[in-house]
Every structure is written in C-alpha cells, then in structure tokens.
C-alpha cells in the first residue's frame, strides 16, 4: 500500500495517536533532539537524526520486573510479589532505517529455544515502527557497509520518504497497512517515483561501502595483542555514551532496590565500557582496563556476534557512537585498523 501525507497531517496523525497510545518520536528540546514519549501538543522534529536511538521502545533504559510490598494483616505478616509485564501498544514515529533495523539484532539473543525473554518479546510484538528514510548521509553514517541502505525497510512497518509537500508512505507489514488506512493519508499519485529517485540519490551520496567481511577473523587475530588495543583505546574515556546511544547494544543489568517496606527488581541498560560490567564478586575483573573493554565492544559487534549468528554484524551503521563520543573514538577506524594490521615483526 502506498500513500501520501502532508507534513502538517503527519504531525496531526502523530498527535492523535499519542492521545491513544504510547508514541515515541524525535522531539527537539533543550537544544537537542531525542526520542521521547509524545504528548499531544509536541511537535516531531525530522530535521536531524535523534541523538538517542528508538531502542527505548523495545528495550527501555529501565523497567521494573518485580515489585515487592510488605505489610501486616490480622493473620500475620505478608509479602506481596507483583510481576510487572509491559502492557499496551507502542508506536515509533520517525525512526531511521538503521534504528529500526538495529533492533533485529536482539532477536537471536532474547528469543532462542532455551530462553524467551517475556518482557522483551511483549514489547517487540506490541511495537510498530513508522520509519523515515534518509535523504542525505552524515559523515558518520555507514549503514551501507553493514548490509543496509538509507531506505531500508527491514524492521519497519511503514517507510516514509520525504517528497515535495510531505511524505510518501509505503506499508511494509499488514499492521503498517492498517496505520495507513487513516483518513489523514491521501492517494500517493505519482509520488512513488519521486520517492524512488530520492532514495537512489541518497544511496549514491553514501559512496563506496567498506568491506567488513574480513573483520571477524582479523579482530580475532588481534585478540591477544593488548598493545594494539591499548593504542586504539588511548583516547577512550571509558564512558557509556556509545553503548547507550547504540540501537543494537542489548546488554542489561538487574539490580534490586529496597527502601523500607517496598522492594523492586529493576532491569536497566548495562554498559560494557564500564569497569563494573565484568567486575566479579571476588574483586577480580577480567576486563580491568579500557583497552580490554574496547576490544570486547568492537570484537563483539564485528566478530563474536557474527560468528554465532550467521555472519550478521551487530552494528547498524547509524554512527551515533562516533558522533557522540566525547573523545572522538571511531569504531570504523578501529575495525579497519585490525583489518589492515600488518605484523611488522
């Protein structure tokens, strides 16, 4: 199904949805643009790629898994445990193809024969993505090098492409078709061609893709070469900006909070660049330095994950980790350095 919607109507469409459902959309505030829960009255900001990815929709930064309440009754003391499974539908409007596709990296981990993460699965199954294709790549974009392109509809339910006067909309899934049935969408007319031309141009602007196919093996070769990793991680400050921005990072931490008579089990994003990520109870830390940790982050995305999951690189090429790194660490350069490494001994 192909439709057209004016920008004004898209804002209206989003606002109406937001009145009924949990809508996540890029909103400009405080000088930056982030995905946040859309409240009727807010405007969507399509001018730039949101700083934080839409990962929150399917994998929120924190979610309560369990609530515990203590109380006393006539019959004695009681302990009430409440599982907090997510409820309701969520619609993401304005994600980019990289972000929508990135979430697919989660599935092989959270939905296996042995393990099915009920919290993740519920959210995934109840979330729709209305994605906006990119018309111009940024200097940090490299989705084309990890098997995607600026108009990739994978992982989306609807793909929007900016055209004269509004957006050309194409439904990708049946649920997407249902969305496009809304009266605010008009006949697409000849805009399909205009959109196709835009998409082609965007892909051309990205230029030659880099070939990461040798990365998995080459990174493994460098596994024990801590000198290499120390040099690569010199400027890394070991913060979590890269992992928290990343649409594909799926690591989490579970902590119990208690205060007085209430307790809670909380799941929150974890960050493999942090010292505490692998800190063991004994005090020993197998990844005690930032070099170890950067090796793991890059190795995991370009080598260990592809090894386990059909050569799929666990990176969607959105470039957020590069653009937002306070020290300018560029994951592309780290992988390339491993690929191009020549043993001078």
């Amino acid at each position, binding site marked *: 199904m192909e439709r057209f919607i004016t920008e004004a109507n898209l804002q209206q469409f989003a606002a109406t949805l937001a009145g009924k459902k949990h809508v996540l959309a890029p909103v400009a505030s405080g000088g930056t643009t982030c995905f946040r829960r859309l409240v009727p009255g807010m405007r969507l900001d399509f001018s730039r790629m949101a700083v934080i990815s839409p990962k929150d929709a399917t994998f929120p930064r924190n979610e309560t898994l369990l609530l515990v309440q203590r109380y006393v009754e006539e019959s004695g003391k009681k302990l009430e445990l409440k599982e907090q499974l997510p409820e309701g539908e969520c619609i993401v409007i304005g994600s980019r193809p990289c972000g929508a596709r990135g979430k697919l990296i989660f599935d092989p981990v959270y939905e296996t024969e042995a393990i099915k993460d009920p919290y993740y699965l519920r959210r995934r199954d109840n979330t729709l993505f209305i994605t906006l294709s990119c018309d111009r790549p940024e200097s940090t974009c490299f989705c084309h090098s990890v098997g995607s392109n600026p108009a990739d509809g994978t992982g989306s339910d609807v793909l929007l492409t900016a055209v004269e006067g509004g957006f050309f909309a194409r439904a990708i899934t049946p649920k997407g078709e249902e969305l496009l049935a809304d009266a605010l969408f008009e006949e697409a007319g000849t805009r399909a061609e205009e959109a196709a031309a835009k998409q082609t141009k965007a892909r051309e602007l990205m230029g030659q893709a880099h070939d990461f196919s040798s990365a998995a093996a080459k990174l493994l070769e460098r596994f024990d070469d801590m000198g290499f990793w120390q040099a690569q991680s010199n400027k890394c400050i*070991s913060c979590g900006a890269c992992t928290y921005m990343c649409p594909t990072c799926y690591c989490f931490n579970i902590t119990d909070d208690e205060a007085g008579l209430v307790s809670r089990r909380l799941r929150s*994003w974890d960050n493999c660049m*942090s*010292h505490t990520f692998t800190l063991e109870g004994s005090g020993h830390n197998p990844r005690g330095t930032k070099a170890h940790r950067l090796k793991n982050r890059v190795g995991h995305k370009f080598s260990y994950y592809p090894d386990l999951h059909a050569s799929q690189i666990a990176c969607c090429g959105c470039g957020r980790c590069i653009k937002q790194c306070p*020290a300018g660490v560029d994951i592309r*350069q780290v992988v390339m350095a491993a690929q191009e490494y020549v043993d001078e001994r």
Partner: protein
Amino acid sequence: MSQLEELKAAIRGHLDSLDCVIGWEQGYDPLHATPLFIRNESDLERLSISPLAVHNPATYATGFAGKKIGMVVRGCHSRSIIELLNEKLIERENVVLFGLCCDGVVSQRKIRTALPADPGFVEAVEIGDDALHITLAGEKTTIKLQDVLADKCRICAYPDPLLADVLIGNKHDSRPEETLACQEAFEAKPNAEKFTFWQDTMSRCIRCYACRNVCPMCVCQDYCIAASRDPLWMSQENSPAENFMFQMIHVSHLTGRCTECGECERACPVDIPLMLLRRYMNKQVQEVFGHQAGTSLDKTPPLLTFQVEEARIKERDW
C-alpha cells in the same frame, strides 16, 4: 615559524624522553578534532592546534601514573594540571607542559545552531583568523569565530597557561570581563522554574557518565560511588531524581576543585548545561573561601581544610 611549527619543534625535542605527548588531530570529519597521542614523527605531523581542538589533555593525566608524558595545554587545561598537582594526584617531574596562549575554542553546539543544516553533512572546513568557512552539502557558510566561541572562553580569565615548561604564542595583556547573561538569567529565575528545568533536563540524561569520565578532576576512576553497589548511594533507575542525584554527587565532589574547563558540558551527548551548576558552585566557593581551583600551586581544596573562625560563614541563629 608558525605557532604550530614552533610547537612541533618543541615537542620533537622532548619526544625521546616521554612516553607520549597528548595533543590533537583532525577527527572523523574536518569540523571535529580528536585527541592525539604523539609517540613518533608521523604522529607529530598530524598535530593540530586549531580552535576546533577542544579536548582537555589533563583528563588523561592520571591514567599515565608513573610514566612521564607531555601535554599541550591551553589556559584552562593548565588549571586542571595545577589542581591535580595540588592534590598530589600527579607529579610535577612526570609532566612536561607545552603551553598554548589560547584565543578560545569553539562550541560544537553553537556551530550546530549557526549552521543551516546538521553539521553531520559537513564536507570541508577552512579555518581563517577569525572565522570558520564551512562547506555543507555543497554550500559554503562563514561563521565568525567570536560567535561560536565556547562560553567558558568568553569569560575566560586565564587564557594563558598558568604553568608551562614551554610557552607558545603571545601572552594576553588583559581580557575583557564578560559575564554570561544566560547564567545570570537562569540564576535569577524563581525556584519553581529552575526545579522544572532540571526535572525535564534530567529526564533526558541517560547516565552514560561521559561528563564524569571526561572530567579531569574525577579521579575516583573506576570506583565512583554512583556506580557502586557498596556503598549503595544510587539506584540504577534512570529517572530524573536519580540522574540528578548523580549530578549532585559530581558537584559535591568537585566543590572547590572544578577548574571550569567545560569538558562535562561538552561531552554530554544530550546537551545538558552542566556548567550552570559548576559556575554557580564555583561562585559560592569564591565568595566563601576566596578560592579558585587550579590558579596557584600549593593550595589545599577548601573542603579539605578549615578555619576555626570562618570569616565569611555567617552563623544563622534561631
């Protein structure tokens, strides 16, 4: 000889005796610089000291404990070094300071606001004496440096390094005293507005700790109480209150120690104006203790000492 060449020559003379010299080079695009760790001649060739070179090399100083390193420092960076020396966190004989008399660095946020489109689309940058000529999606835009100067530079009282082994450039005679209108305007707001501002701003924080890890004075390294379970100061909950709690920890631990290099605010991926908090606390420290961190050697941070009679702390009676 240009300042850059002068600096390169100076560094070249020290390279053999140092583990590395920390400077800057061009980053992932012409608009962004990145720290450079100079170990050999080819590294040295990439050195850049343009106003885009913003990172504080002092951030890395404690990470090289026991090794002897060099650092290219601007005025504010030298303050960080002095404070680290005062707190005996680094040793003077282990650092060689290549000082740059600094005319200010840019704020990427201001550049972003000044450009007609996202700076992600930058193609080329030409750095003039007082302007940046930026080619963006095929179009050239000129921005005056003065307009995109970082806030910390607009009010900088110490553009010239306060401590350096080699000094490059011309010392500044005097600096125009400026105040930051937006800082003052914010401070003057009623409590309710400030409260709401932080509530909303903190809801954006993802607690990536970039502000902490980039801070040259955050020397707890991997043992920050915000991330520890013992002691357990904070929940992992990513809520405004917990995020703000972390900022309070940061402010509290920086009381009398912050050298106003502005790295926390620069590093924040979601543009939280942390310097509002820093500058306000520093002002209080200045008022009560007459202390400015990192402006002179051998000063103890005010919270690590006391006076029996505190001249400027009034007892509030009941």
